[in-house]
């Protein structure tokens, strides 16, 4: 069984996003970039499945401009077998519908039965791509998963989903897509020898323009602004008494 892991390169999640007034977009020049944290968890899970003998091959896929290669190298260094880089001419803001169409073209070509991806990308916070891809491919879908267990015969998988009311367990027939939540596993670090080894692993580049997919955005960004948080007093208090008095004064209690 082949596993495909779509991964995204994003602004480092612990870096504050800033806007470049001139281009009216988020300023990413010289910013620290990283693999989307949910995608790291997806890669880790794929590697574990492979180590348990259930998968024959793990393939990371990322869509973006040239720098995206760094993120794919990172996945190779973590341990995936090979990578597919879908290259866009410029930093396009591709939306989940388009990403879904691109990924579905790749998945059909590779013939993968299991796709593991992040539940959301921490830049756009869309939380859509996996679900949309499942609709395009007509695969089963398990979203927000925190546990994953393949059946012995590789025909189905039992997943636990973190939902607003608790934890739901479902059984998905393969082919399936799962989108992973944070508590699924602890991603490994790439060791130095593995970083070296990753350089010689196969990394195929596919030009987006060669795929014949309409990439025109359906949702246009008209403008962005930094959401200044409310100005708050940060008034020091020293006792429960003072706290409750202040809350009363503020009309909150």
């Amino acid at each position: 069984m082949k596993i495909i892991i779509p991964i995204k390169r994003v602004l480092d999640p612990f870096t504050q996003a800033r806007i470049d007034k001139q281009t009216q977009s988020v300023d990413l020049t010289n910013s620290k970039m990283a693999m989307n944290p949910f995608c790291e968890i997806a890669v880790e899970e794929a590697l574990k499945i492979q180590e348990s003998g259930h998968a024959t091959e793990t393939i990371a896929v990322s869509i973006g401009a040239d720098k995206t290669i760094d993120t794919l190298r990172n996945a190779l260094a973590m341990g995936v077998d090979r990578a597919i880089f879908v290259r866009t001419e410029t930093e396009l803001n591709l939306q989940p519908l388009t990403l879904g169409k691109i990924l579905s073209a790749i998945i059909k070509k590779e013939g993968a039965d299991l796709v593991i991806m992040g539940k959301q990308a921490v830049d756009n916070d869309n939380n859509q791509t996996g679900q949309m891809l499942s609709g395009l491919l007509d695969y089963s879908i398990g979203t927000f998963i925190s546990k994953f267990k393949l059946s012995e015969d590789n025909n189905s998988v039992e997943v636990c989903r973190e939902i607003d009311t608790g934890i739901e367990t479902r059984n998905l027939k393969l082919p399936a897509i799962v989108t992973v939540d944070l508590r699924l596993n602890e991603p490994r670090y790439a060791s130095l020898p593995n970083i070296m080894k990753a350089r010689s692993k196969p990394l195929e580049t596919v030009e987006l323009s060669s795929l014949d997919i309409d990439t025109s955005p359906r949702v246009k960004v008209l403008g962005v602004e930094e959401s200044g948080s409310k100005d708050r007093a940060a008034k020091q208090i020293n006792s429960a008494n003072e706290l409750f008095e202040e809350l009363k004064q503020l009309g909150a209690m």
Partner: protein
Amino acid sequence: MSTLVLIELNSDQVSANTRAAVTAAKLLSNKVDALILTNNSNYAKSVSSIDGIDTVKLITDDSLEHVSSEVASKLVSDVMDGYQYLVAGSSTFSKNILPRVGALLDVQPISDVCEIKSSNTFVRPLYAGNIMATVESIDPTIILTVRSTSFEHAPDGGSAPIEQLTVDIPKSNSSFVEIQESKSERPELTTAERIVSGGRGLGSKENFELIEKLADKLSAAVGASRAAVDAGFISNDYQVGQTGKVVAPKIYIAVGISGAIQHLAGMKDSQVIVAINNDPDAPMCRMADLVWQVDLFEAIDDMLKH
């Protein structure tokens, strides 16, 4: 223009975020219908009494109690014929379904809408809410999930007719096994007026019970940081933040929570924020209205005695 609202039920109760979705739907069009997928037709009554709904469309089948994304998205997309909008509250329920509806209808949905600017222009958060983007949809059908903290919750007061739809329920490749629901007598996190939220600073599951005691004393809901959930102090459905729940109570008391960007994303619109922390440099202290620099156990003790 007409809008379909996908209803989320918590057993027989309409969820708060569905009520926010109804309010948003009314801003978009003057005809608002509701769609319920359920195993129990009695649940339609609570929906027909929401103010502002024209017709309740009801699909019932035993298999719909824990409906899969695969089945729900097919049913919803079939009903969508003739509607310009599909709206639902931002929740794991609708985020599981609506994007797949989008794929079936070849539409790009818009998540977490906080403001409706015009019939096709919306404001939504990016980067854990640090950036707000104004976006315009050019799709002929528009699919939205809306933040329940950004729209009024539509009250009761209506009496919409209920229309039973007869449809074939598609077969699903995924099946329900079980659900572990956390039941609590406390106010629900996303609609509570007061929240006491605990972080890693609590140190253990036993100590976290102090947060629950304090919440009970203040008639507040309990919240938690991701670190507290990861450490097993409390279950996942209490997590507040970018990847948890978004709340905006009158009072948010953060106990032993440092205030990482991802946590602030879920609570920064609270009316009054109280930081209880022994580190004055914790980001939470910088963005609070009231800061109590103290050992949290001492503070909780003082509050419980009060």
